């Protein structure tokens, strides 16, 4: 433990930042060289958007929340942004397991570079990719009739919160991926917590349409908090407050969740990294 701590200090913060930049660049380059991966990782969220808007959208009763907002698409887009960012975070698990399998991590560990740069470079690259996909979602959403109704600044803040939340989830996925060790296992293990969290949330449907026993959990879990926050930044005031919370409370709650997830899972991921690469 002490050796690792000393070692990280010895590399120096400036070098560590530079190494993280190099690793981020490397991971992005890797992605850019695999157009099929870019294609499928963007087609999937777009498909979600189309399916939910056109197939389920008509059947979803927005209740009170819907009366003020014109269309389901306006209600859906904020949720989809959060869902896309969280799904996108699974790329972190996959990327790390790929590197483990290829023996590339051994090479990195034998170099005089900051060890933290391997994990940080991975999560930043996935943040970049998530940003790209989320912007694409907005473009597709716009073509489908989505409009933001609270001004551009709040819209941008909403997108930024969704992306930061996805970044926080990258650390959860890093932990899971490093524990799972192979891409196949990481793929399944990564979606295990994500599916129930995303579907038992206000991403696609209002929580008050769910059975009462589920509502307490569904309304307060982080993915709902984030969806509601982004929503509050994009759809008009009368649709709020959601669950009796005003916009600034929601924003602070979102930031708290993001920080808490990083605070818990970044150290877990680092510890698992040391264990796995031994």
């Amino acid at each position, binding site marked *: 433990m002490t*050796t690792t701590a000393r070692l990280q200090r*010895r*590399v120096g913060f400036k070098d560590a930042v530079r190494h993280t930049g*190099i690793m981020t660049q490397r991971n992005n380059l*890797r992605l850019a*060289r695999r157009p099929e991966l870019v294609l499928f990782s963007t087609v999937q969220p777009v498909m979600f958007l189309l399916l939910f808007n056109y197939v389920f959208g008509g059947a979803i009763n927005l209740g009170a929340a819907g009366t003020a907002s014109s269309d389901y698409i306006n209600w859906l887009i904020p949720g989809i942004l959060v869902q896309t960012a969280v799904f996108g975070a699974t790329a972190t698990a996959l990327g790390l397991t790929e590197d483990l399998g290829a023996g590339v991590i*051994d*090479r990195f560990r034998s*170099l005089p*570079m900051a060890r933290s740069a391997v994990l940080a470079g991975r999560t930043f690259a996935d943040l970049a990719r998530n940003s790209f996909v989320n912007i694409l979602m907005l473009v597709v959403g716009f073509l489908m009739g989505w409009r933001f109704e609270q001004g551009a600044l709040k819209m941008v803040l909403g997108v930024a919160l969704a992306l930061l939340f996805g970044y926080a989830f990258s650390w959860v996925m890093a932990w899971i991926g490093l524990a799972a060790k192979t891409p196949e296992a990481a793929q399944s293990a990564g979606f295990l917590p994500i599916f129930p969290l995303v579907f038992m949330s206000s991403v696609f449907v209002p929580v008050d349409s769910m059975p009462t026993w589920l509502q307490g959990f569904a309304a307060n879990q982080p993915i709902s908090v984030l969806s509601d926050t982004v929503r509050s930044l994009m759809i008009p005031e009368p649709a709020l407050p959601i669950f009796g919370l005003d916009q600034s409370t929601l924003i602070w709650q979102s930031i708290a969740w993001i920080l808490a997830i990083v605070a818990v899972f970044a150290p877990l991921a680092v510890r698992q990294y040391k264990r796995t690469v031994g």
Partner: protein
Amino acid sequence: MTAVASHNIVKTFGDIVALDGVSVEFEEGIVYGLLGPNGAGKTTLIRVLATLLKPDSGSATVAGVDVIADPVGARHKIGLAGQSAAVDEFLTGRENVEMVGRLYNLSKEEAKTRATDVLEAINLTDAADRKVGTYSGGMRRRLDLAASMVGRPQILFLDEPTTGIDPGSRLDLWDLIEDLVAGGTTLLLTTQYLDEADRLADRIGVINHGKLIAEGTSNELKDQLGGDVVEIHVDEQDRAAAADVLTGIAGSEPVAERLSLSIPAPEGSKTLTAVVRELDAAAIEPRDIALRKPTLDDVFLTLTGHKAEAKPEEPAETGRRRR
């Protein structure tokens, strides 16, 4: 100056003792060959010296830097080319090498120049701007070697550089390693191939079951056998009888190759004469009989009681060729 010094390194994985008190020491400017079969502990020792693995006990320095107390310092001194070519197949060869250079803290321009140089030294200039995914196994190994050299490390660790590649690429890699060494690079190389250690290494450490069981130059190790070897070739139907005859003379089982049988000949031509006489008495007519210098195969057998195993994919012709 001392390149590598390890003292009593012990490393266990659960019940398995991978390294059982290994002490190795050699100076800069030489090639040290660590020779042993699969699972002998070669890779574990390299991983300890390359700061990838902390030993349970013992100490080690590379270029005078303690690998346990100052791993970052040690990493500045070393380059590692591991068993699986650790290169990124979605990047080009040049991008791979440049990235490693920049992680050694070279500036962007330095990394570029240096990458061009090592790619040329390793004969990959033509393929440098192709994705590594299109490279052959031998090319990947060479690229891995280039990446390990880009930071101008004082000591290079090559872990089984030619395992699993075709014989032609193997010879190319040998030439390349010999060029490197001629340029003054210090090398620690592990191998399970006796001919590889024989050809490349100035000094050889024989490792088995986590212990260094012998050390010296190739000739010194051969001398430990106490002299020459008598080798005979017999027809298949005479083989068992001939083995009995040889066992009677040597006092132990002969070394059995596919076509030949051999025993140590401590008394040189007298042993040879004895073999000829006894074979004649047993009415066995050998197809060939010779007194020859021992090979590292013989050394290995004498030291460990079993032959050095070659991996199944290794072509027998290159793995066991006698020189």
